């Protein structure tokens, strides 16, 4: 849970100043330092990044309306407008999940090296 929150908060803050793909670096780094098992690491990155984008798009929906959102729904011929929130969630989630599991795998390599050195 800690990993999830850390990825969410850090990536949320950094994306105000830096390009969207910094979320991958955040997920990678956090999983490297805090990841314990592969599946939870992946899920923390997946949901941590995905939920930030989802909440941010919902925040825009409630504060700035959805005139443009509806036009993009029409532009890419989506059958229903909730799908665009799902797509937005998914783009960040997939990148975040893949990045965090990559970070976790790097940790495994380094920690196993340490293990083999000690034995």
């Amino acid at each position, binding site marked *: 849970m800690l990993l999830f929150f850390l990825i969410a908060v850090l990536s949320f803050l950094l*994306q105000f100043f830096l390009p969207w793909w910094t979320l991958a670096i955040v997920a990678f780094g956090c999983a490297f330092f805090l990841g314990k098992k592969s599946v939870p690491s992946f899920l923390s990155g997946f949901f941590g990044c995905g939920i930030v984008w989802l909440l941010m798009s919902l925040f825009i929906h409630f504060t700035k309306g959805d005139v443009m*959102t509806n036009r993009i729904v029409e532009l890419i011929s989506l059958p229903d407008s909730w799908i665009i929130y799902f797509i937005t969630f998914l783009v960040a989630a997939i990148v975040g999940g893949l990045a965090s599991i990559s970070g976790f795998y790097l940790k*495994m*390599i380094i920690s196993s090296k340490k293990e083999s050195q000690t034995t």
Partner: protein
Amino acid sequence: MLLLLVIFAAMKWLLFVPATLITILLCWELNTKQGDLPPIGTFFSPFTGFWQNNETGKISDEQLKIPGVKDKVIVRMDDNMVPHIFAQNNYDLYFAQGYITAKYRLWQMEFQTAAAAGRISEIVGNRAIDYDRQQRQWGMVYGAENTEKAMESDPQCKQAADAYTAGVNAWINSLSEKDFPIEYKLLDYKPELWTNLKCALLLKYLSYDLAGYSDDFYLTNILKKYGEPAVDSLFVNRPFVMDPIIPQGTPWNFTPLAIPSPPQGTMTNAGKFPFDHQPNPNNGSNNWAVSGSKTASGYPILCGDPHLSLNLPSLWFQIQLVSPDCNVSGVSLPGTPTVIIGFNQHIAWSETNVDADVLDWYSVKFKDPSCNEYFYNNEWKPTTKRIEVIKVRGEKDVLDTVVYTHQGPVVAMSKRSEMRPYIPTGCAMRWLGHDGGFELRALLKLNRAGNYDDYVNALSDFNCPAQNFAFADDANDIAIWVNGKFPLKWKDQGKFLMDGSNPANDWQGWIPHNQDPHVKNPPRGFVASSNQSPTDSTYPYYLNWRYEVFTRGHRVNERLANMNHITADSMRLLQFDVKNLVAESVLPSMIAHLDTTTLNSFQKQLIQKMRDWNLEATTTSIEQTLFQEWWTDLKYDIWNDEFGNDSMTFPEGEISMRTVAYNVNQSWIDNKNTPQVETLNDVCKESFHDAVDSLTKRYGTDLKNWQWAKVKDTRITHLLRIPAFSKKNVNTPGFNAIVNATGADHGPSWRMIVELGKQVHAFGIYPGGQSGNPGSPFYDNMIDKWSRGEQNELVILSSADEKNPHIVSSITINH
């Protein structure tokens, strides 16, 4: 044991390497434009992507610090998002105009100048190379550079242009990626800094749109095939009803210059290349002013109604500009300082297009394929060459050399243009739009004019595109000037291609400005123009042989002559008038020449409807739908056998009207491709059956589906033709050649009514909205009202702190 550990370690690498590679690749792909798709990651990110372009339309107060302004500027926004700019000096005024206009319309400004300059390939890649090349060959940048030079030679123009440019750039510099208009995000590019050249390019774009067409090439082919008698009877200025802009019988109080005489053998060979389609120039407009003697208030009322292509974001941007020597309101052209159509406390003005022939073609004889020299006045003269560098996104630059003679660029050297088939090959183009002009100075003066003399003085600087400027002021003067710089031509000079080696074919001089057709306070108590013939045949100079059909102008004149105690509301109804005078002129003859005994009951029912029709092109009219179809088919049946090939053009509508209404030109009515001789009866019958069959095929026999607005299907399309950013199925009446000239994608682009007096009252509307952002409620909020013929009362402030219930916020700009 060791082996196991190695295998275990290697397995971890096998997991890490692919996972990391996939992550990096995915990020890379999602951050890169894929074909027509924007970079998905950037575009969907709620931090930078399309989400950020949602807007509630709420405008809040702002305090801004912008280096560049000299003094405090106050911008008050009204509830229709119209800015009212109050500046202490004219530099700040145009700085703020640039800043605010860019805030709402940046993408459009930049895209339209890129389109004018032939720089679209930089944005969309190689598919626009042909388009860009044509813009370069047309000499758009060459013309803009000349205009920029003229602009910068005049201190006031230079100040206004410099200030406007600085203001636009102040806005651009304040943007980060998330603030970019949606189109930049979709096409994945960034705004570029603005320049004075871009202001000039926009003026050239207007000249190209309004004075950039010529059918000299088609006419030359027709002359060669059918001879002078055919041209003299079918391709002449012969209005069905003569009702010119300057009332017939108005005396010309000047001594005209001597007209140059035409040399022998002016005709040259036109090209012989096949081409595809015919352009459809349809930029008509209406304007009029009625004197106080005819109004309820005793003060003049002026109405403007320019008809142009209808697009989103709108061509126009409403604005009020106030400085110590100026308080003007109306519409501006995003990308150019000043108000183009509008009013101040004393005067009001509005333009319609003159359609003078200021574009001629000269055949060029080159010495050799190098095109370094051309034959002129019995000697070889050097050409000049302009190397155009077309930058292409993701590819190498394309270089194009354009050859210029003293007349102008050789637009199409040897290959026919598919986009502009009317361009003759191997001909140099003489176009007034290439000459540097002082149109901006004219507008600066006009914005500040206080009376008739100021207005005439301002107009003397306005060269191209020539416009009919209707005028009214609070001293109860009304006037109209058919205004522009007109070459001094012999009759029909430039109607056909000319021999470019003979100096006698060149333009020999200019009509003095004070001899441009004009009238002040005519006895009839109103002035009006609808692009019809400017004068009767007594005007001593030749301007062109073709003008718009008489119908709109005649209808307006007929109505105004019979109106008294005029109010803004009765003017509004006249702007929305939908009586079809083409149908009035020809439908009785079409029905009379139709043998109704052979019709089936459905066809008989339709003919009965046509007989009972009140001639109004309303949204629900079935008759307008059938008439339009029938009339189009009838003209086709009459002319297509002779003029239907792709190197010619049909005679003007008024010649068709004469042919049908009076049953003349019988040899042309006959279809040359059949052995028997067709009469008007035959073509009326054939075209009626064709029209009914075609409508039945498209819309069935339920006449509800034949309703005019449904069939016409007016739409207002985004400049990139993106349907999701366009307004479709706009339910609105009218059509070309009708006072309310709303066609499918073309029509009244800004309806305005100004009541002069001690306190000016004005109304206006355009089919769009003040914001260029499709994510704003102000993107298309005026369209529904516009489609019903209603208008907004315009907010006019006399001071920066005036209380007005329509003002919703204030932006204060300090340096």
